[in-house]
């Protein structure tokens, strides 16, 4: 001791190292214990730069300035809807669904939601129709239900829900990554609405304690940061998807094959299709009307087109599906629009359900009319 001041000895490297490691372990454990589930809600979108026109999704981030991630909070916080208080003069329409709604190979303004929004539809009671895209490129009705439930936070006046038979088989409801890695949300939804899906389905990924540490969450945390950074590029360029000049067009010639998942012709077993999820969706929407749309698909005239409509569907299965949809909608009092064949073959792009802007335009007229009808019914 000298003049009351402590004389500092040389700092021990080993002590510093041990302290550092201990602190790191402690912070990791605290992070896992605290479980900051809502971290994704912290977003620079709609604050530092504009929100996205559609939910984040992309496999080549450096080119599309977009990426696929599993944090639903972060995904929705990046959408422009999240930053928009609903004006009294707005009739808010939210479109949910698969990649055909999200708009694979389409610019945001070319999608169904984009074209409907640009149409400037004026609803009754002096309200302006504004349409938002909450589609997401995986095909599963349960995924749609998850998104519909979240969409309700944004006070929609109408939900448009395009769907196709591929989204119905029960065994694929929980298998898409966005569902299986949001197991807690999925289970809560199954239990809340008493769905017949298995809450212990192995597809639902159980996150253990160690996955909750910073080390365990490193990928998700990195995705969160990348989503914010790519937001800068999205805002600067308006690009959120790669638009290749060339792509493989949808298949029109087929093998003589009539298979559809595990279903056996000639009868489509309705008990293995997730019609209950549609009914649940209507329930989740509460008093908000839902417009259910059987989305357009490519009707092939190529080889073996007498057996199959397209890559996805044999004729026997799809015809019965349409019949069932009509029956369910009649029984359930759904507002249902069957647009399965309104788009000509040449207006499909790289899949039997992905359309060109012109193809989307065919839907716009029909769906737009229904939106206006619903808007005028509402008070």
């Amino acid at each position, binding site marked *: 001791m000298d003049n009351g001041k402590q004389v500092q000895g040389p700092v*021990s490297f*080993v002590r510093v190292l041990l302290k550092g490691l201990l602190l790191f372990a402690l912070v990791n454990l605290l992070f896992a214990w605290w479980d900051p589930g809502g971290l994704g809600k912290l977003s620079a979108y709609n604050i530092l730069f504009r929100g996205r026109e559609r939910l984040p999704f992309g496999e080549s981030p450096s080119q599309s300035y977009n990426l696929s991630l599993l944090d639903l909070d972060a995904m929705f916080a990046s959408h422009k809807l999240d930053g928009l208080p609903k004006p009294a003069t707005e009739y808010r329409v939210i479109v949910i669904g698969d990649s055909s709604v999200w708009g694979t190979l389409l610019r945001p303004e070319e999608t169904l939601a984009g074209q409907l929004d640009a149409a400037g539809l004026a609803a009754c009671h002096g309200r302006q129709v504004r349409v938002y895209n909450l589609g997401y490129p995986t095909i599963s009705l349960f995924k749609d239900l998850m998104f519909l439930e979240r969409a309700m936070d944004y006070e929609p006046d109408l939900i448009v829900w395009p769907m196709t038979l591929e989204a119905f088989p029960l065994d694929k409801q929980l298998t898409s990554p966005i569902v299986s890695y949001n197991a807690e949300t999925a289970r809560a939804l199954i239990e809340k609405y008493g769905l017949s899906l298995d809450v212990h389905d192995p597809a639902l990924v159980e996150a253990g304690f160690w996955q909750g540490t910073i080390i365990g969450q490193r990928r998700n945390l990195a995705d969160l*940061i*990348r989503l914010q950074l790519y937001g800068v590029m999205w805002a*600067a360029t308006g690009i959120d998807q790669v638009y290749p000049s060339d792509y493989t067009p949808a298949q029109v010639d087929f093998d003589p094959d009539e298979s559809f998942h595990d279903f056996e012709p000639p009868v489509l077993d309705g008990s293995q299709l997730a019609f209950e999820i549609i009914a649940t969706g209507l329930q989740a929407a509460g008093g908000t009307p839902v417009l259910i749309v059987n989305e357009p698909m490519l009707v092939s005239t190529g080889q073996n087109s007498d057996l199959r409509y397209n890559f996805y569907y044999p004729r026997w299965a799809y015809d019965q599906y349409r019949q069932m949809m009509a029956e369910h909608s009649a029984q359930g009092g759904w507002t249902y629009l069957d647009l399965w064949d309104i788009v000509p073959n040449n207006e499909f792009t790289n899949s039997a359900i992905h359309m060109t802007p012109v193809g989307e335009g065919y839907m716009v007229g029909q769906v737009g009319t229904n939106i206006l009808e619903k808007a005028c019914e509402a008070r």
Partner: protein
Amino acid sequence: MTLPHILIFGAAALLVGLLTRNRNRLYPMLAISILAVYTLQPALPVRGLDFWLPTATLVLAALSWFVTASPTERSLRGQWPTVGLLAGIVAILASTRYIDLPFLLTAGRPPQVQQVAVALVGAGLLGIIFSRAPKWLLGVWLVLLLVIFLVLKTPALAAMAGSILRGWTQQSRELASAVDVRWLGFSYVAFRIIHTIRDRQSGRLPAVSLGEYVTYVIFFPSLTAGPIDRLERFTQDLRKPLSLTSGDLLRAGERLVVGLFKKFIVADSLALIALNATNAGQVQSAGWMWVLLYAYSFQIFFDFSGYTDVAIGIGLLVGIKLPENFNAPYRKPNLTQFWNNWHMTLTQWFRAYFFNPITRSLRSKKVPIPIIIFVTQIATMMLIGLWHGVTWNFVLWGLWHGLGLFIHNRWSEWTRARAAAWAITKARQVILNVSGALLTFHFVALGWVFFALPTPDVSWKVLLTLFGAGS
């Protein structure tokens, strides 16, 4: 260097530092450096080239010792352990062609052992010939290095070299490109060798052993991105007995952690939004273009200075205190100070071996001072630009900085007295420094437009967009 490379080399350096306490650590350092030359070399499309180029680096380094050592020091007596280590490691690496290793020490499958043996014997014979080398060989060696440099840095010449090499290996010549001859670390290796050649020519080069010389040239932490050390300083550290203290380890650890954070967190994140050839054409608004340019400016700084921190940190673990390369360059109040603090070892190198000799030469011819400054600044900066690649954009970048340095020199000459008279209070000095730093940063940032983009027309469009005049 990737993160695994850094961790492995860091661990290896720590091991050497701890195990060779007060003993000779030359050979372990040389061995790691030799392995690093092969491990860091990326895979190349030309068959076997990703083995031959690292081998050429070693041969070049070893032969350069014969060329630069004074005739009395060139004897192979006492150098056999180094020769054995060099040849032994190369032979072992070549023999991995026949062994299934769970990890790869070379980028691709090594060539046949007999080919490697012939190459080693050839290199040995050259060494014997060079041990009696006349003085003029120094000049020839310098020219050879510059010619290789020119070929590697000129896209058309590099593609031509790729085409020739493809012909030798009977691969499609149509697919030849500049990437075919991506010779990792050659730039920095050449800088170090040229430094020794020039210092030998001026009689200032210290006597060093073959092992010390080769270790200096290919020292693993600074192989790929510098800093460019000086031989006399490096060997001084190398010859000091090493006894790592807690303080040394902490200093090294701090530099490593800071470097890794700068490079892999800050720079790599900024890279996602930094100006590049693709997004340059996608952004139409001035505001966003500035954001991208700022991101690039900071990305290049954090990337490069992060690597330097890592190199210095690893160097400290083996008792080598590599020189600093960056000293807060973006906070400097003028362009001259910026260049005294940005990639310092490169600018010092150019100052020592290009700028000063030319200045002396022009002064001796009684050329007026402003003209000397103009010529030397422009020539030096253009040469630094061309070192990055022989393209118009690097020429423009060099010209931009050369003109900037000249204008700053003349301006400060004119305003020095006035500025001193005005900045009599602390507040005024701060105003002068901050405004100078902001102006300098933006001048440098605008220069990055040429550096980051491939062609003058793309750069010009970006500059127009930045000032609201884009289409």
